[in-house]
């Protein structure tokens, strides 16, 4: 981001978090600020705290110490419904009970905008259908989730998040189970929403090359700390990959996009 720096839309300060029954804290003093309109990729090896960080950012988990601030306010002072109007989350592997249709799933995103007794209004249907069109699911609105491919299911869950009309979209490994085409498709949609609508996106990823190609900023987590934070080229270096991922890798540069991409060679013994 160039100056003048806008105030962070989402920030954590001095985060302290320990999982139930864990010996030590996962995060002890972690700080991170996301500014409006950023597209942040959170990367790091298994167990580095990516998913937990996302849950803390979304307010689904509460930290034992430190503060999560949403739009400059402590997230504890924001009601869950108000929070849900600002932040949408797409989690990994959602097991949905019962036979809801794709349209019903997308309509669930309207919940934070409606009172307990209120049925979805025409504008809620419009918003859910727009999200389904965005995700290329308009023809599948009466299909049941169980009968869809994992790519379509994932897109339905992203459509639910979009129909929430959030300012911030948090995603946990949105492309983990998807094939090449659907991975690129989802990232392209996210980049477009980020550019056209100013949607702030924070997504975790195991796919370093995808994260580097689409994210304007990478945050590399290592054992609950930020090991590196900046443009992809400064984060994906062979020294950092060696230290954090314990893997020897060669870093090359994609001639067309200029994004770095890594070629893993061997695990460090």
């Amino acid at each position, binding site marked *: 981001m160039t100056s003048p720096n806008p105030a962070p839309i989402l920030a954590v300060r001095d985060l302290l978090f320990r999982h*139930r029954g864990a010996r030590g804290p996962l995060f002890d003093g972690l700080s991170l600020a996301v500014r409006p309109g950023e597209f942040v990729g959170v990367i790091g090896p298994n167990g580095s705290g990516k998913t937990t960080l996302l*849950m803390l950012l*979304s*307010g*689904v988990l509460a930290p034992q110490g430190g503060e999560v601030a949403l739009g400059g306010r402590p997230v504890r002072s924001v*009601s*869950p*419904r*108000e*929070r*849900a*109007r600002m*932040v*949408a*989350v797409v*989690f990994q592997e*959602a*097991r*949905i*009970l*019962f*036979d*809801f*249709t794709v*349209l*019903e*799933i997308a*309509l*669930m*995103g309207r*919940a*934070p905008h*409606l009172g*307990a*007794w209120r*049925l*979805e209004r025409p504008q809620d*249907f419009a918003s859910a259908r727009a999200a389904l069109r965005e995700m290329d699911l308009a023809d599948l609105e*009466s299909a049941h989730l169980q009968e869809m491919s994992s790519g379509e299911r994932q897109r339905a869950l992203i459509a639910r998040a979009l129909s*929430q009309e959030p300012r911030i979209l948090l995603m946990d490994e949105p492309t983990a189970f998807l094939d090449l085409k659907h991975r690129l498709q989802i990232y392209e949609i996210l980049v477009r929403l980020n550019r056209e609508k100013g949607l702030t996106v924070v997504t975790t990823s195991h796919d370093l090359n995808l994260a580097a190609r689409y994210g304007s900023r990478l945050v590399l987590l290592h054992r609950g700390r930020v090991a590196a934070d900046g443009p992809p080229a400064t984060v994906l270096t062979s020294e950092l990959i060696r230290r954090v991922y314990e893997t020897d890798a060669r870093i090359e540069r994609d001639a067309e996009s200029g994004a770095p991409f890594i070629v893993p060679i061997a695990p460090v013994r």
Partner: protein
Amino acid sequence: MPPLTSRRLALSIGALLAALALSVAVCASLGSSRYTLLDLLRHAADEETAQAMILRVRLPRILMAALAGAALGAAGAVFQADLRNPLADPYILGVSGGAALGAFAATALGLPAIAPVLPVREAAAFLGAIATVAVLFVLSSARGRVVPYPMLLIGVIMNTVYLALILLIETVVESSRLHGVRLWMIGTIPIEEYGLIAALSVVLVLSLLGLASYGRDLNLMSAGEEAARSLGVTVERTRVVTVILASLITAAVVSVAGPIGFVGLIVPHSARLMFGPDHRLLVPASALTGAIFLIFADTLARTVMAPTEIPVGVVTALCGGPFFLWLYRRQAGGGYFQ
């Protein structure tokens, strides 16, 4: 199934109410004595007998069956969403078993004989059911959070313990004292005063309204606990309030009619097939479907071997047991045999 609109909601509930009224009329005309509703309208010669038979014997029993079926059907739908388990049901969870133990213990201690005018057995059954829910919550929570997954297994174990305690009481206490409660325990729709029926109706309707206001939250919880949280649902509060309301109506009807099994399992699944999974419609639809189901089950129970009556709990268990196994096999898929 198209998504829920106020039109679909009104049409579905209206159709179910009409079906319920028809069921009441048909079953009020069925019985071991051959009086029908038409005898009342026609002013037949034996009008008074017909009136007594239908208005004082059949109708209160039909209404009681409707209340019990409505409460158990709605409670089943709510438990299944709260526990994230399609096999949940107040009977399997031990709520009904807790009521049975309460009633048995009170009767064995001779409490009803001490205060014959008070509904002591019913009160003890009610306390037993509520205590079971409290124990379920305590045993399945960790650091102030209720974890739904172990609840069903805990309920099954509690049922087993309850049965052992009931058998123990039976062995120790002289059996003549337990005759009435034994019949109650299998599940029998009693002929109750209209006052009690009205009181139960009020409790049921208020609880159903309370549950309906959580309908959307229950939908979101079906999509995953974290997803529900991220969509603004206060999951703990929703779970505690809805489980307590569902247990309250279960306890209220079970304390009167006995622990009738499997209604809470069969009914929500059938209602989901007919009306879809949206809990804003599913909960009231399960209540109305449950009422219709139990009216017919009880009519079957009192007519099929007339003048001998089968306890309605036998009818529902004979339908429900196989249904549960079929459902479990289908749910578990290949995992059933691993």
